């Protein structure tokens, strides 16, 4: 093929790719799963009640069958200020990730959808009213993986 024609073809393909929106499947989970945000933790269980988290996993992912592994979760062993607890997690290949905890009145903190150009490596700062588990569940190749870290909170930060 003539060089000029070949280059012309490339430009045409690029134009099509640029015009295709990659925001087609944006999901606002407050609208899509309004009830999941109300799933409660038993606050009297001192952060040891996993029922809320497990119920949330089922509601978000459609299953509560989780395996360990594939997620790197970083959170402090001890948080002096429960109002600002830094949490970082990575899950290569994840398409959806849920961040939950057992320390606050409700279990779900955030639900991430990973867009095509997104990289599942996130850092946020959360509130923890008391000592509890920070739990991350990621959907990778149709399977669910879980990571769990206990964070000791010396001064609670949820207005409680």
């Amino acid at each position: 093929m003539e060089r000029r024609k070949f280059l012309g073809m490339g430009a045409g393909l690029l134009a099509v790719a640029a015009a295709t929106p990659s925001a087609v499947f944006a999901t606002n989970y407050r609208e899509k799963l309004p009830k999941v945000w109300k799933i409660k933790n038993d606050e009297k269980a001192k952060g040891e009640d996993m029922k809320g988290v497990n119920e949330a996993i089922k509601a978000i992912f459609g299953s509560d069958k989780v395996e360990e592994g594939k997620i790197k979760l970083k959170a402090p062993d001890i948080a002096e200020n429960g109002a600002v607890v830094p949490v970082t997690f990575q899950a290569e290949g994840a398409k959806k990730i849920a961040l939950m905890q057992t320390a606050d009145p409700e279990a779900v903190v955030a639900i991430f959808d990973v867009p095509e150009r997104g990289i599942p490596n996130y850092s946020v700062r959360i509130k923890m009213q008391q000592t509890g588990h920070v739990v991350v569940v990621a959907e990778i190749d149709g399977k669910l993986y879980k990571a769990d870290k206990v964070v000791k909170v010396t001064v609670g930060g949820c207005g409680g």
Partner: protein
Amino acid sequence: MRIKAKSKGDKTEVKVMMKHPMLSYREAKKKGKEANFIVYVTAKNEGALVYEVSTSQFLSKNPYMKFYFKGGKKGEEVEITWVDLKGKTKTGKAKIK
């Protein structure tokens, strides 16, 4: 909001500090105010969606987030939008350095 977007080879690192009181229901009740907190955050790079999260009242006040996306070149724009419980939205932009 304050946004720092840095090119890191074949990916871009973004740090954002959004300004919002993030009043949980419990905190709001204590203060005699209405609960309000950011519920949805997205980021785009030159029109393409690169970050998306639905959030709860348990993110810290003035939420800080760090994330990465594939691609992105110096000089290109990163645009971040948040929506809160009351429906207010705010958008910030920054150029990738």
